């Protein structure tokens, strides 16, 4: 079936929209400006739904939220100069969390490039360190090919952000649109998929002998859409499993093999298990410093199997005894099959489980609830879990509230927990929720926001209101930049330098000014009810929850310390 636009002369900007549609794009987030006017003119007639954000960072995070919620490539547009530089935070965020995204920026006319033209910025140069790849268009006929290549690079291997920079004059030029089809010609890009079967067999033979194994999985399993394969693998024997903050939901949280999240604010059980393990099988995780603490004292008794699609992550931080380069979706079933064929003796793990159960019994995750009406932040998460029945898509900002959500909301499915882990970008939550809701309109999407974070991106409330994107924001309002205050309390002698937020803004008034429905709650007896009301109300809703101002998030591995020196 030939497409109607083959070889039709059209503006390169129209060809850009056609190329996006050919990649299956339905939604785009962005803001128009001088340098991308031709693109926006093409958008006016194109069959693409454009959501007009209120800050390019919001558009970028929305594209990320869209991608993380759906597994599809998220797309954002920005104009040249300040528009493009406003995208940089979101691009860096997508890079750190391996989010498949394509960012298309307008650029000044070709004859102005390099002359400090109006709204000119070398966005390609600025983003070199934070993109998976980038394209600067120098001939308008390149556009369909570059888009095709960009989507391929963004979504294969280890996903990541790709930038396409289009000078304004080139996007107005007439070209003959020829859709780029088939595998893109990229001689230097051949991501691996299949793991080496010999390595896989070696790993299973080591695992069958291990007496204190731990399975350590992360965001890579979610990216690979390999949750079912992981669950199947876990059923092969009584392995204990822990997940990173990026991997939550890849394995269902309420489960007898679940140790809890590991790392800086992970459970003591998970961290002690890693510390005492004799074999750690890492799948789609990269031994980030929040997990390892002091590297020289990390998991001193363990040997490592490391399964990852990015060979550069293997042995980057921690030397891998058995490296397996491949896609988790491909490697895990083979691992399962080979392991089951060995018919290992499950009872060799009994002693290990004895120790694990003892830790779980002695160090359960918990907090001291208030005896009056004061809302403890952990209680707020539990109420949120109850009100959403554990089934919502939750996005968050960065800080204490993020860690409490990771600890107390028991994610049972992947792509329900959407947060900024690697870069830790405050303000991620609301725009990401907007993107997630656009991707999954039939699911309940809740942004758990921090007051320090939300005020950075509150302008996106206009985006949700005007486009009628009914996200719910549950604001954990403690009047502070909570995590920073906690560190100042614990490590800087309580010298609270510039962490108090005061009571500006009045969040209910502000949300209503943006056209949202807004509620407030400061009594724990009314909290679940308020949440249910918010969830049941049409349109975007903000629930301003006043919580205990000085609660600290524990347990904690202090920065640079070893896991066994956890505090709290």
């Amino acid at each position, binding site marked *: 079936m030939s497409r109607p636009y083959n070889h039709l002369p059209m503006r390169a900007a129209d060809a850009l929209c056609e190329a996006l549609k050919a990649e299956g794009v339905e939604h785009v987030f962005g803001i128009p400006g001088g340098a991308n006017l031709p693109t926006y003119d093409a958008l006016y007639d194109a069959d693409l739904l454009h959501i007009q954000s209120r800050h390019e960072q919001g558009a970028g995070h929305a594209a990320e939220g869209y991608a993380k919620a759906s597994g599809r490539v998220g797309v954002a547009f920005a104009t040249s100069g300040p528009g493009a530089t406003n995208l940089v935070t979101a691009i860096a965020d997508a890079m750190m969390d391996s989010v498949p995204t394509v960012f298309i920026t307008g650029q000044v006319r070709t004859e102005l490039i390099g002359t400090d033209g109006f709204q000119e910025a070398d966005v390609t140069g600025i983003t070199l360190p934070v993109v998976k790849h980038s394209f600067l268009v120098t001939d308008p006929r390149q556009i369909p090919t570059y888009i095709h290549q960009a989507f391929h690079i963004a979504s294969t291997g280890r996903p990541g952000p790709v930038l396409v920079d289009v000078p304004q004059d080139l996007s107005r030029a007439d070209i003959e649109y020829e859709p780029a089809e088939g595998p893109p010609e990229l001689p*230097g890009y051949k991501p691996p998929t299949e793991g080496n079967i010999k390595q896989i067999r070696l790993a299973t033979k080591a695992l069958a002998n291990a007496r204190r194994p731990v399975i350590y999985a992360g965001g890579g399993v979610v990216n690979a859409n390999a949750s079912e394969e992981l669950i199947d693998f876990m059923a092969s024997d009584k392995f204990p499993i822990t997940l990173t903050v990026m991997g939550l939901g890849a394995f269902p949280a309420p489960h007898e093999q679940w140790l809890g999240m590991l790392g800086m604010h992970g459970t003591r059980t998970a961290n002690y298990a890693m510390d005492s393990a004799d074999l750690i099988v890492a799948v789609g995780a990269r031994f980030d410093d929040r997990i390892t603490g002091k590297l020289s004292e990390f998991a001193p008794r363990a040997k490592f199997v490391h399964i990852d699609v990015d060979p550069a992550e293997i042995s980057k931080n921690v030397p891998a005894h058995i490296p397996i380069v491949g896609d988790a979706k491909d490697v895990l079933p083979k691992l399962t099959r080979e392991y089951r064929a060995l018919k290992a003796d499950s009872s060799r793990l009994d002693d290990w489980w004895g120790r694990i159960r003892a830790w779980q019994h002695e160090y359960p995750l918990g907090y001291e609830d208030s005896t009056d009406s004061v809302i403890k932040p952990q209680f707020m998460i539990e109420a949120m879990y109850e009100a959403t029945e554990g089934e919502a898509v939750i996005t968050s900002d960065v800080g204490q509230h993020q860690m409490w959500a990771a600890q107390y909301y028991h994610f049972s499915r992947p792509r329900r927990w959407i947060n900024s882990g690697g870069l830790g970008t405050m303000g991620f939550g609301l725009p990401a929720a907007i993107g997630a809701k656009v991707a999954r309109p039939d699911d309940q999407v809740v942004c758990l926001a921090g007051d320090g974070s939300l005020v950075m991106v509150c302008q996106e409330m206009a985006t949700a209101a005007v486009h009628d994107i009914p996200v719910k924001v549950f604001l954990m309002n403690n009047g502070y930049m909570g995590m920073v205050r906690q560190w100042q309390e614990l490590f800087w002698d309580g010298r609270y330098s510039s962490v108090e937020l005061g009571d500006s803004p009045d969040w209910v008034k502000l949300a209503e000014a943006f056209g949202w429905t807004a509620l407030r709650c400061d009594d724990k007896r009314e909290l679940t009810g308020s949440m249910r009301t918010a969830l049941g109300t049409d349109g975007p809703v903000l629930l301003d929850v006043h919580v205990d101002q000085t609660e600290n998030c524990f347990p904690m591995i202090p920065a640079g310390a070893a896991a066994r020196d956890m505090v709290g």
Partner: protein
Amino acid sequence: MEAGTPDLVKLEDLQVGKTLTGRKHIISLTVENKPGVLARIAGLFSRRGFNIDTLAVGPTEDPDVSRITLTLDGAVHPIDQVTKQLHKLVNVIKIRDMEPDQRIAREMALFRVQAAVDNRADIMQFAEIFKAKIVDVSRRSLTIEVTGSNDKIDAFERMIRPHGLIEMARTGEVAISRSRPDQ
């Protein structure tokens, strides 16, 4: 099957290799001949904290492909990480970390040396010994072009310094693999 049978792998037997090789590495990259490729490579090295000792860039027999030859110290940098990070760059097509006995490496250098009439003959003798060429002459100096291995250029520089080295420009090495006898 009981755990601990010989068919399974003993965890004590699992080892990892050393990350630092302790020697100089010459890495030859073939890259797409596109604008910005060199910037991407230099940027990668800078942000990962890898120090490039020398760098040479030039065309290859294929107009769409360039060659970048760089050297770095394997005593300081984990060479495996360096090559794996380079592989992630989309424009990098092939990477060869050339073993010392499997490569031919050459470098060119230009030396401007003090050579007034009284020591000119000595300088010209050095040039002859090193099979170097005199490419420029003035009243008080000679400019000498030397081509050869890294060691040869180092040796020439050591010989010439005491006689008054005014200025030096070195290209950095390029390398190509040795042919197999039957090729």
